[in-house]
């Protein structure tokens, strides 16, 4: 079992997702996580960091959020994004649970620009996810089968 854990605190901004990705992708590579899984989880992480900036902190720069990542005992890649801002509403989570991508139709503009595209991507790519709020801390937690190469982790 790999006990190494990535943990770092960042400041909210439009650039933050790039900083987080630049830090965490090498960590996942060191763990031996499969390239496809890394690509998918990088996308999920970027979507959630942007969600923190845009919604939890209403596009305000300089608010703190935490990123943690590790392989759990069953070699699932675990990612936690915690903020201290606005909590996602139960309705948003209910809508997300029921949402899926619809096939766009060329002559129906209402199908071109779909809402909550970022969260739908996360829902599709993660094996499981949960959103919890404790005191003033909101945490989005994702798990994904890591497909770790032999000899790693």
């Amino acid at each position, binding site marked *: 079992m790999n006990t190494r854990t990535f943990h770092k605190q960042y400041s909210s901004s*439009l*650039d933050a*997702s*790039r900083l987080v*990705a630049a830090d965490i992708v090498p960590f996942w590579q060191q763990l031996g996580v499969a390239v496809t899984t890394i*690509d*998918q989880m*990088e*996308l999920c992480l*970027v*979507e959630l960091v*942007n969600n923190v900036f845009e919604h939890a902190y209403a596009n305000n720069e300089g608010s703190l959020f935490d990123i943690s990542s590790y392989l759990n005992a069953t070699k699932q890649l675990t990612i936690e994004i915690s903020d201290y801002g606005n909590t996602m509403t139960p309705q948003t989570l209910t809508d997300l649970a029921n949402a899926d*991508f*619809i*096939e*766009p139709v*060329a002559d129906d*503009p209402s199908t*071109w*620009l*779909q809402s909550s*595209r*970022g969260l*739908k*991507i996360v829902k*599709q*790519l993660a094996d499981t996810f949960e959103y919890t709020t404790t005191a003033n801390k909101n945490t989005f937690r994702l798990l994904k089968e890591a497909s770790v190469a032999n000899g790693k982790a």
Partner: protein
Amino acid sequence: MQFDIIEKGQYTVIQINEARFDAKLAPSFREELENIKGNIRDHLVLDLSHVRFMDSSGLGAVMGAYKMLRNTKISIVNPQKSILDLLKLTRMDKLILSHPTIESALAATA
């Protein structure tokens, strides 16, 4: 330069010279598009050869172009696998076709 604009007959090519087409780059893309929209020809080709990563904001910017340029054909050229996967996942590959090269994109409507 984040973008290069190339005019080719009835085609306009926007080459995106960034590794990440994300929430940081999307506003610049929209601004560039606003600046040139009056001169865009019948077919807009987005050359993504240099783009390694695209998120929902980048995809939203591409879809914004699709909406803005209602009578213009839009194609994506040389997307990396992760971008093809994103288009397929979000089903936007049904609206915007991808091609391996600019020549093949242009040939598709020649």
